[in-house]
């Protein structure tokens, strides 16, 4: 029977390990930065990790699961590693940590804004001057090019101030 303090230490180690598993589509971000890890439980014979995909159709998920298994196995003390994908509670962009926001910006992706309010992305908004802030120069004189980008979780924009195209992480909140 595993002792409580040992379980705690192991779970702590697993979380630390997960902080080193990076999203293949946004390499500077770890899966803990993105809030994809829902639960870590260490039992007598296993380490269980539940992953919560950002979008249900995220194709990077298989890679993330394999990377997670490989990484956790190293700190599992010989226990079996079980990584599950779960869909509840629904992932929201509020789960991205402050470190995640910094990492996203470093990669040229504007982090999602504070939650609240509906997501408004009609093409009519092209005329508005208050756009998503540019991750390079900070200007809000930007336009939405498309609500869909290179991955399901990103939108594409153009900054009129520094004339760079950039991407933003989709706000996803109830």
């Amino acid at each position: 029977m595993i002792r409580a303090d040992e379980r705690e230490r192991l779970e702590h180690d697993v979380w630390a390990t997960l902080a080193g598993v990076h999203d293949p589509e946004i390499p500077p971000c770890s899966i803990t930065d993105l809030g994809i890890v829902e639960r870590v439980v260490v039992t007598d014979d296993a380490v269980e990790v539940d992953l919560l995909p950002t979008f249900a159709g995220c194709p990077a998920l298989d890679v993330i699961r394999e990377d997670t298994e490989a990484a956790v196995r190293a700190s599992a003390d010989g226990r079996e590693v079980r990584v599950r994908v779960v869909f509840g509670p629904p992932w929201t962009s509020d789960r991205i940590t402050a470190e995640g926001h910094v990492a996203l910006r470093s990669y040229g992706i504007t982090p999602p804004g504070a939650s609240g309010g509906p997501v408004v992305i009609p093409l009519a908004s092209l005329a508005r001057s208050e756009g998503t802030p540019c991750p390079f120069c900070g200007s809000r004189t930007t336009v939405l090019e498309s609500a869909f980008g290179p991955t399901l979780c990103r939108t594409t924009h153009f900054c009129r101030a520094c004339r760079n195209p950039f991407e933003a992480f989709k706000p996803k909140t109830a």
Partner: protein
Amino acid sequence: MNQNEDPRLVLLLAVADDELIMGHRHSEWTGWAPHIEEDLAFSSIAQDEMAHARLLYGLARESGLTDRDEDAMALGRPPEEYRNAWLCERPNGDWGFTVARQYLYDTADAVRVADLTESSWRELAEIMKLIQLEEKYHADHAVAWFERLAGGPSLTARERFAEGLTAAIGEAIALFEPVPGEDRLVSDGVLPRSNADMLGEWLGHVGQELEAVSLDYVLARHGPVGEMVPTGSGEIPLEASDFQVPGVVRRDGGWIHDGGFAGAGGRRGRHSEDFLPLWEEMTALYRAHPGARW
């Protein structure tokens, strides 16, 4: 049709098959859309819709309503077991039809999804809450094109959009064809409102938006919903050979449906002439290599 079929399975299939088949049609724009942003948009929406179908097929299995896994549900069923509405299986046609259909489909889906987040079937309600978060982006996409084509400077674009709406509206109404066993689903709270009630809400909403751009005439003049053809091996039963959807009238300042459904459409496993070719292509690999894994 199996008389002993659990209505919960029929409900799941109606929603999941709509999403799967709509996703399949959207995916046909990959590489062909008018510009790269739309290529990405339709490819992304397709990816979302198929993922939503997968979640619902998974729920059917977890709930013991089927033995089939998600791949077998999506690709391993005979054509007559698919319960999607005809609207979803129609070929993409031109851009006007594509965006008109996406607008009608996603506005109707939004009504249905919102209702099902209140389902007494807790697992279904949870999945619907997740789906609702993602569908928001599809609705925004549809509205953006609605505004651009209906209100934009190009009369040709407006005309082609109106033609698309005219062609799609009758079969869009059929998204609300009652599912077999619906009375029980409603009395159990699994389906919080009947399809007729949801149709009323949707028509009121769409009617208002179309009226604002003077395109509401498409509502009143929708024609017959299409030719019936047998799917699989079955013959068309007499009563199913003339699938009819309610008409639409303007009354008391709003658009409402008039009359009911007759015959059998997608919710009873009857499809249009466009379904079989789609099914053959969509399932070709799976049928050639049963149980293949990607």
